[in-house]
């Protein structure tokens, strides 16, 4: 059984601090949904409001259409996987897994059987009698998932559960989590500051900044069609040009920047008009060497340095009039290998691949 989760006009305040500001969102039943944002953006607070550990200051949390006001975390059809997993160290693995059943008064024999089934599901057969301390990080991760699933929740909430794992394991667990979600078919709500995790696993992602949802969409949309400067700078890598809108037409704007006039597609909802402060973003892989000088937007630059990453090169350039170096990614071939630091080059990009947003706060770093 799976349920839709809806947040309606949710405000969460701690004294004067607003952790969540008028959140309206509907998470479809059975979907893998992520809240993505830097630490302190309010994503964990929202998760706690869904799990019942805190009540919104205003607004409603609905699970499966039912208002959750006044219903504690032990009575909600949700299960939460904690950032540090919070397994019970003084219980064996199987007791951990079936704790939710113990609470419901299920007999030991039936609990043991269910534990064995779940251990099978998480690929840890026969490990039920171990203590939690005897397991590796990845195994503990899986036990935490099994413990939450044993409660048969309609919605599984995950609070950055992979952050304690090393890179390799984290990447493997992404695939595994996505797999488990498809198999059990319940709604997963995933909290992360790691865009890689959000992009690879999620059906839909809400990007948050300072208690506000900046944009909701699937990974592709967020990457290709960011609505705000923050989303453009937070999701994936982007080159930025600051400027002022010179001319705005339907489907394209011209932004006067220190690197010259750049044409770009305006972001949805940006409503840019002549004279507005605006940012132009172009992805490193959309930026090209334009030796033939034929692309719509052209910038003169010097190659500063380059990094070899196997299948492609990262080239860093000092563009004329740009305050920070530009980054260009290109497939590793003979032409790419011929680009050397110090060379004078012309860069170009297509207007429809660049996005112009209203000037606004950027992601840190």
């Amino acid at each position: 059984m799976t349920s839709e989760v809806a947040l309606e006009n949710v405000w969460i305040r701690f004294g004067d601090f607003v952790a969540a500001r008028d959140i309206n969102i509907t998470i479809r039943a059975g979907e893998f949904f992520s809240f993505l944002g830097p630490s302190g953006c309010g994503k964990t607070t929202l998760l706690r409001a869904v799990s019942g550990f805190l009540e919104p200051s205003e607004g409603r949390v609905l699970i499966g259409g039912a208002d959750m006001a006044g219903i504690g975390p032990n009575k909600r059809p949700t299960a939460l996987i904690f950032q540090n997993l919070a397994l019970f160290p003084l219980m064996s693995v199987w007791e951990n897994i079936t704790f939710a059943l113990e609470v419901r008064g299920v007999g030991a024999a039936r609990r043991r059987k269910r534990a064995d089934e779940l251990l099978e599901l998480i690929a840890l057969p026969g490990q039920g009698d171990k203590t939690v301390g005897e397991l590796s990080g990845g195994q503990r991760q899986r036990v935490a998932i099994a413990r939450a699933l044993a409660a048969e929740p309609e919605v599984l909430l995950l609070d950055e559960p992979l952050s304690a794992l090393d890179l390799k394991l984290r990447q493997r667990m992404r695939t595994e989590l996505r797999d488990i979600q498809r198999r059990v078919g319940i709604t997963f709500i995933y909290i992360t500051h790691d865009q890689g995790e959000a992009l690879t696993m999620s059906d839909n992602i809400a990007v948050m900044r300072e208690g506000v949802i900046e944009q909701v969409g699937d990974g592709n949309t967020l990457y290709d069609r960011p609505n705000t400067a923050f989303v453009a700078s937070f999701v994936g890598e982007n080159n930025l040009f600051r400027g002022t809108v010179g001319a705005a037409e339907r489907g394209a704007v011209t932004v006067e920047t220190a690197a010259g006039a750049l044409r770009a597609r305006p972001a949805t909802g940006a409503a840019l008009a002549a004279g507005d402060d605006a940012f132009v973003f172009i992805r490193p892989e959309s930026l090209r060497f334009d030796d033939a000088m034929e692309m719509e937007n052209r910038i003169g630059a010097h190659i500063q340095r380059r990094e070899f990453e196997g299948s492609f090169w990262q080239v860093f350039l000092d563009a004329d009039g740009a305050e920070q170096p530009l980054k260009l990614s290109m497939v590793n071939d003979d032409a790419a290998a011929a680009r050397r630091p110090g060379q004078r080059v012309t860069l170009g990009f297509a207007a429809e691949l660049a996005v112009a947003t209203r000037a606004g706060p950027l992601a840190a770093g």
Partner: protein
Amino acid sequence: MTPLRHLREFHRRNGAGLSLFLIGATGFWILFMIVLPQLFMADFSFRANVPPPKWGTPEHYYTLEHYRYMIYGGGGEGSFNVIDLRVFFKTIGAAMLVTLFDAALCYPIAWHLAQAARGGWARLMVLALVVPFWVNEILRAFAFHILFGASGVLNSALMAAGVLDEPYDFVRENIALYAGLGYAFILLMIFPIYNAMESLDKNQVEAARDLGASRWRIHRRVVMPHAKPGITSGCTMVFMLTAGALAAPQILGGPGSLWFTQIIYQAFNQAGNWARGSAYAIILLVSCIVLVLALMKAFKVRLGEIAR
């Protein structure tokens, strides 16, 4: 690591002077404050009761008569020392009850301090717990006597409220004594439990709650197992000190009741029978240790855990 390597590591970290002081001070403490007095006491308990001038003479021979006396008394074979035995078992039993009462009282306080109380409020609570203990133990006992006396605060209040028609003798019924004993060592119960609870990851409590556990089950399955070493440590100290308390029974005890320590006190200071006093003291000490170890075994707590 072998003990020798421990010692070398200790020396390397602290240098010669500090190492010598630390080992010397600890050694002095253990030898002169604990081991030697107890050894002398044990030796006395097995010797005939003679005045000091005859110590070391043949009249100061070894005997089990004081231990025998504790069980059989001065009467002939077949009669038991009912008075002393009754006081002994009553003392042990009452000390256990006081310990249980303290544990039940302190667990919620420690829990509140460790997990719920914040900043200023937590500091205020700790102060409120600690400051009364700046008052001398004997003064505190007298204060309890006044509180529970026939014209004391409690009786006046209960009579004013119409609950009682005439003063209730809390002292004669030993209620004042148990209250005084219960309060005397309450900090030694709260702080070990608090220490143990403070190290509990709050997420574990939340995880249990999220999985549907009631408050009671969270405590039984998550908090109590985690705090068990602290609870044991607190119970051990409170039990030992209560069973060995002297001031509170002297001041708060009813006329018809004796604490076992008072019998020991009488043997030393009134009967001048140091040998019997020593034997009784050893009996109390050994009984308490055996009881504590047996209970630790029953509750599956190892000695090392208590020291954590």
